[in-house]
């Protein structure tokens, strides 16, 4: 995020794009409600009526998969109506002419048949966004989980450049990240292309610095993105390039990755799979070795919030059973593999990381303790440097020439669209009671009592009527890749032809259906769009029995005590 989360409350206009705060982050949603109460204008772009859309001044209920066309149209209106911040564009940006040339044809009238949003509403939204004193963009997985994702992110950033909404408080652009501490994982270099603090693995000076610190030669090549693993196992002919071992921790690809049938085949074909997690999960069923680790209340550490804020977490209780912290396990494995690794605590690891990462160097344990949170960059250890609440102060950007780069791209449709055989679209979403892949929440009696297997598919009342199904009925959902059973949830909040499922359920696992198509730059899969069909189940009783039996069998296979399950 270019801004801090608390600044959301004080923006004069919030432009929320493909982000459902109420279900994904109820506490961030609170800031959105507060902003509205303080008089902020709310524009929400979402194919569903989310809680934010419900209270918004304008709801652009676009058709899924049309983000780029809509954003280009908004840019088009801002330029055509002379609403751009010309001084900011001139002083602090580059690439404006190229940008203007691409968005030129995206008039609201051109975008309408793609987005299904009326030209008047697009114009009204563009005017409000450009004219507000401070406008802030919040976006979520409704932007990132498309095969055209990075383009859209840059398109949103270009709107902020075009209107001068960078460099001050309560403005800018904020990706509200999908997972707890996913920002931290990226900050620490758990990516194939960088070390901590986004220092590139292909930069020789950086590599030499790390080689010197660690006393080992390091590769200067970018690694393999997670979503390329199936390809490198199933299709790679060169044995030397093939993946033979896969060490997975804090991740459940057999639940969360697209096209699960392919993932299971991948996991079974790899010679050796290690799974390290707090509870048993679907990936664990395919693992050769399982390393049980501690959960968040059982260890110390630092998380990064989506707004670049480092916060300390502290051990609250002694771990039960034969478990170790992730860092202890990594140290032991490393030592056993011939590189002795010894740390006394997480502070030692943090200090080593800081010493190699200039942009985080000033964020000491003591300072985080004293201030509660520090947003990077924080370069100096002295108390003077309290971090950076918002980026690009005074219109200075990270590019070597200090200017923000405009970017526009032609709209591309999703990779798999509806057809006569698969006439509905499916998008994966979140729900409030269960988190991520249900490792932490699915076996909780209290939460299982609120929502439980096999999960739901959200459908428009018109589609329910067409298929002659009602709320709670079990229904078969299938795509080119797989099929599953889930329950019908009719809701006026979705448009006819579009359906939505949460991705954590073991029985109604919607990733059986999703496509493995990726964004070419981020390698994030297109979880937000695939084509499916629905089939009414006449024998509901045997379908109910099937759900019950499959759930029991998964639990038995995972060694979860079935007798203790709630009433």
């Amino acid at each position, binding site marked *: 995020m270019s801004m801090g989360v608390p600044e959301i409350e004080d923006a004069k206009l919030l432009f929320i794009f493909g982000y459902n705060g109420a279900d994904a982050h109820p506490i961030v949603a609170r800031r959105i409600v507060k902003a509205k109460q303080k008089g902020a204008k709310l524009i929400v772009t979402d194919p569903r*009526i989310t*809680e934010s859309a419900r209270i918004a001044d304008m709801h652009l209920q676009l058709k899924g998969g049309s983000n780029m066309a809509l954003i280009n149209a908004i840019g088009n209106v801002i330029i055509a109506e002379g609403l751009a911040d010309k001084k900011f564009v001139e002083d602090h940006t580059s690439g404006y002419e190229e940008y203007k040339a691409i968005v030129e044809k995206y008039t609201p009238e051109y975008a309408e048949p793609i987005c299904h949003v009326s030209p008047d509403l697009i114009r009204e939204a563009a005017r409000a966004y450009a004219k507000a004193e401070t406008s802030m963009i919040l976006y979520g997985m409704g932007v990132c989980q498309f095969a055209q994702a990075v383009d859209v992110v840059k398109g949103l950033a270009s709107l902020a450049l075009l209107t001068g909404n960078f460099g001050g408080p309560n403005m800018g652009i904020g990706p509200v990240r999908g997972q707890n501490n996913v920002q931290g994982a990226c900050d620490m270099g758990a990516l194939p292309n960088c070390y901590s603090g986004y220092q590139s693995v292909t930069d020789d000076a950086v590599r030499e610095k790390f080689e010197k610190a660690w006393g080992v030669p390091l590769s200067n090549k970018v690694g393999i993105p997670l979503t390329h693993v199936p390809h490198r196992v199933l299709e790679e002919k060169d044995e030397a390039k093939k993946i033979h071992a896969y060490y997975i921790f804090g991740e459940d690809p057999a639940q969360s990755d697209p096209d699960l049938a392919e993932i299971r085949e991948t996991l079974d074909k790899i010679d050796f799979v290690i799974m390290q997690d707090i509870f048993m999960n679907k990936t664990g069923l395919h693992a050769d070795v399982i390393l049980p680790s501690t959960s968040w209340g059982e260890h110390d550490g630092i998380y990064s919030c989506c707004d670049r804020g480092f916060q300390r977490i502290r051990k609250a209780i002694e771990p039960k059973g034969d478990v170790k912290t992730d860092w202890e396990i990594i140290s032991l494995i490393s030592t056993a593999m011939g590189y002795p690794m010894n740390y006394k605590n997480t502070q030692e690891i943090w200090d080593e990381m800081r010493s190699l990462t200039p942009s985080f160097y000033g964020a000491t344990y003591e300072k985080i303790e004293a201030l509660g949170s520090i947003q990077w960059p924080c370069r100096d250890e002295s108390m003077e440097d309290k971090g950076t609440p918002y980026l690009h102060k005074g219109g200075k950007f990270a590019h070597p020439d200090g200017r923000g780069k405009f970017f526009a791209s032609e709209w591309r449709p999703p990779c798999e669209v509806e057809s006569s055989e698969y006439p509905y679209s499916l998008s994966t979403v979140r729900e409030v009671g269960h988190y991520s892949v249900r490792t932490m929440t699915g076996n*909780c*009696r209290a939460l299982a009592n609120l929502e439980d297997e096999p999960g739901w598919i959200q459908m428009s009342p018109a589609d329910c009527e067409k298929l002659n199904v009602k709320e709670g009925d079990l229904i078969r959902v299938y795509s080119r890749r797989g099929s599953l059973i889930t329950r019908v949830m009719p809701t006026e909040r979705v448009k006819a032809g579009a359906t939505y499922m949460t991705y954590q359920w073991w029985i109604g696992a919607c990733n059986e259906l999703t496509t493995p198509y990726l964004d070419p730059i981020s390698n994030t899969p297109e979880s937000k769009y695939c084509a499916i069909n629905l089939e009414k189940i006449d024998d509901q009783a045997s379908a109910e029995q099937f759900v019950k039996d499959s759930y029991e069998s998964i639990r038995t296979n995972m060694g979860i005590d079935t007798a203790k399950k709630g009433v």
Partner: protein
Amino acid sequence: MNKKLGSFVVACSDQCTGCKACEIACFASHNQKGNKVAHTVGTVEIPVTPRLFLIKLESNCLPIQCKQCEDAPCLNSCSAKAITKVDGVLFVNEDLCIGCKNCMMACPFGAVEMLPIAKKGKAVSQIGTDEVRKSAFKCDLCSGLENGPACIAACPHDVLKLIDLEDDRKEKSIRAAIALTLTGNL
């Protein structure tokens, strides 16, 4: 009039984000003593039985709960005399309730639900069969419980308020009286 009007909890749809913290807080506060429900989910051994119900429609989202009616249809229709009114609050006695569902039918707000009874951390079975015993559940404003109503305290968005309509009416009529005086045209 010698008796106060019963107060009740209402929600504001504009602020609610549908997080269900109120439902969980309601359940937890009513089961702390009898069923040892504590602050973490690991202590929940029984079915979750909230007494207010989150409703999501196309353009509304808010929890619905009992209005503590003055001439309460639930109480009037109860065939087992299981519903009583104490200090303006309507209570269901779970031990007397036979689950006839008259109150569910009678309640114009859908604020009564039939839910399983639990005691000492276990679901209670019926005498004649193994089936779980159910009773009517409705909001009792957390009467007799500390720091109630729990839903109000738990809501992160200040959506819920305890309404005292007598005070509210008085305040409104005072404002109306002042406004009327200001017009000065009578």
